[in-house]
């Protein structure tokens, strides 16, 4: 038997469902009532993105990535998974990228119309991550502290960010800023799949919407005449 063909997805998830749900719960318990502030922060970021205040939106969005990278991955998830600390560093890198984009304005698109398809998809993802995700756990019978919240837990942080990236970024920067959120949404979806979590489809729906949004915006940019160019 070939060694690689014998591996299954479950071989890469080194903990059981109760451990994962307790991890979500511990983050919820340990940082309550920070959730209220993070929801406010997420709402502000979405509003700023929609109003074209891109650089400030990016600067604010950097903070949750740094926090989740350290508090969730390095201090807690890393106890359960060998890759935890490395993923934590990837989150810190994403936070740094967003902060750099906010400080320099690099890669930021001109303000888009709110009815542009990518912007609409981005906003939908933003609302899903910010308001939809925290409601899923209590709706499927879990504890409120297990509710996944933007800037406390990684999945809603990645989903909101992917939405904001769709609204704010352009060209290669669109993909550069979206790749880590996309990667985490994929890993998170696969983890939930192995653990048989009831909200697994939400993660794959967010992943599909994110990829679709990035593709739509890239194609639209390809067809669009360059800035200041003749029509």
């Amino acid at each position, binding site marked *: *038997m070939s*060694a690689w063909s*014998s*591996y*299954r997805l*479950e*071989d890469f*998830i*080194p*903990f*059981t469902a*109760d*451990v994962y749900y*307790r*991890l979500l719960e*511990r983050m919820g318990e340990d940082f309550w009532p920070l959730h209220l502030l993070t929801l406010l922060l997420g709402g502000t970021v979405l509003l700023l993105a929609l109003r074209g205040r891109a650089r400030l939106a990016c600067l604010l969005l950097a903070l949750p990535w740094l926090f989740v990278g350290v508090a969730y991955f390095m201090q*807690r998830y890393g*106890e*359960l*998974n*060998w890759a935890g600390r490395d993923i934590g560093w990837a989150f810190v890198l994403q936070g740094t990228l967003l902060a750099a984009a906010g400080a320099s304005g690099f890669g930021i698109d001109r303000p888009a119309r709110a009815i542009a398809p990518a912007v609409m998809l981005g906003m939908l993802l933003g609302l899903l991550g910010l308001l939809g995700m925290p409601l899923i756990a209590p709706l499927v019978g879990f504890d409120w502290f297990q509710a996944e919240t933007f800037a406390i837990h990684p999945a809603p942080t990645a989903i909101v960010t992917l939405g904001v990236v769709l609204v704010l970024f352009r060209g290669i920067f669109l993909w550069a800023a979206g790749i880590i959120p996309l990667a985490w949404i994929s890993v998170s979806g696969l983890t939930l799949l192995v653990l048989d979590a009831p909200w697994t489809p939400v993660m794959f729906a967010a992943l599909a919407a994110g990829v679709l949004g990035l593709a739509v915006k890239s194609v639209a940019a390809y067809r669009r005449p360059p800035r200041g160019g003749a029509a």
Partner: protein
Amino acid sequence: MKGNTKVRTDRRRFLKLLSSALAAMAMLPVLSRAAAEGLVRKPIRATGEKLPVIGLGTWRTFNVGSDPELLDARTEVVRAFFRHGGGLVDSSPMYGSAPDVMGYALKKLGVPESLFSAEKVWSPAGGSARQQFQQLAARWGLPEFNLLQVHNLVDWQQQLEALRELKAEGKIQYIGITTSHGRRHREFERVMASGDIDFAQLTYNITHREVESRLLPLARERGIAVIANRPYDGGRLIKGLKRSEKVPAWAREECGCRTWADFLLKFIVSHPAVNCAIPATTRVDHLNENMQAGHALMPSPGCRQKMVRHIESL
């Protein structure tokens, strides 16, 4: 008057409860001993030391980090395991916090006489085999291990050499090698045939029986004790059976299998080359089921064939 009667009744009830509780407490060691005595034990061929046929695996299930609630929950699993007279607990530096969780449980429960501690060295965890041994011993809170194995054959030449030195120094009793999921069987066979090892750990269950053709006969020939991992194929086998099938009546009567845990575990440990199966669980009720499978009656060779045919027919 009525009040007095109530007080008397309550006192009588309290005394009755107290005497029952004291009687139960007095019975505990007897029950525990009875449970331990009822477990089938097979000798490790290198020394003749007998090992209960049902052990405890820790992959995934004991990786709970520093969560106090889950640490206590797993301690209860370990408590139940030893109350049944369990012996072998198997872990690895690859299993995240599992060795620390064992250390937590043993600190809380004390180290029972029946414990047979089995650990592994694994190159990707970093450090030499000796350093890993020292770290793992500190994590379990033990001065030594009964068994130290080379995890998944990674760097087995150097690692086995180091394990032999540790064995010669008396820091470990037995050495071994492991594989799982049917990986690297040819190389595994070569090490079994040529290396001076006491234990071989491999995947063996009723749906994965490749090892029956070469590795298990070789283990018997070379006097190597065998630990069977993934007895429930990562949990999916028993979950599927419990969900959709009933244990057939003939299995109850002829093979002593009242539950699917009995059926699957008795099949494994009734193989003459297998010393011990190591199901992993997070739940005390599942642990109790698993340990029941370690009691006689064990399936005969004819019954084992019937069990295979039954599973293949589903």
